[in-house]
């Protein structure tokens, strides 16, 4: 089974590489937010898979923290873009 986890992990990493290209090159500001949000989701899946690769599956709390952080960071960035202020 571990080769399946490893293969999925590598595919996710390659996906993250592509998204990073969009995050850097992205013409409009919104492409960058989109790419950052997508990389956030990919890292959440990747963390869970790392738990399975290393055999210690009880570290899923990491994934929940990633999900919350990615969501809140995206909301903060969007508020800055839309309203120009954070409060």
């Amino acid at each position: 089974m571990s080769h399946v986890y490893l293969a999925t992990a590598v595919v996710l990493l390659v996906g993250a590489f592509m998204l990073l290209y969009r995050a850097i090159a992205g013409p409009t500001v919104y492409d960058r937010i989109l790419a950052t949000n997508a990389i956030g989701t990919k890292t959440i899946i990747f963390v869970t898979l790392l738990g399975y690769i290393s055999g210690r599956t009880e570290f899923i709390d990491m994934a929940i923290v990633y999900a919350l952080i990615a969501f809140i960071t995206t909301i903060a960035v969007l508020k800055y873009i839309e309203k120009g202020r954070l409060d």
Partner: protein
Amino acid sequence: MTDVLGIYNYWIYVLLMMIGLYGVIAKPNLIKQAIALGLFQTGIFLYYISMAVIDGGTAPIWTTIEHGAQKFQGPYDNPLPHVLILTAIVVSVSVLAVALALIINIKRQYGTIEADEIEAMDLADKARDYVRGQVVDAADDAETKLEGRHHV
């Protein structure tokens, strides 16, 4: 010299540190420098945590003993570097917060956050004070000369 495969990891951390160092030196923008400092720090953290890894080891969180045997038999990684880096990350965010507050004050004071512009402004102020100082000294000398004539 141990074989390259074993220590190429450390070279990547050196590369990260140097990217951070380059950012601090080359970029005049103060915020860019604050971020580059963060990169430099992360390179150092990577260096510490890679020392803690043991081949085939797992996270240093012991698993409870079930019917007499440790659930997870394998060796555990060394917990000490993790503790040091845990503290260092939180302190580095505090440093970043204070640095950003100072940058905001610099922006309000100088109107810009480009280090070279700020330097130029400082030099201009210093030059102006110097010149003003010279004028005042010259006026004082002239005065003393006048007073001298009255006493004679």
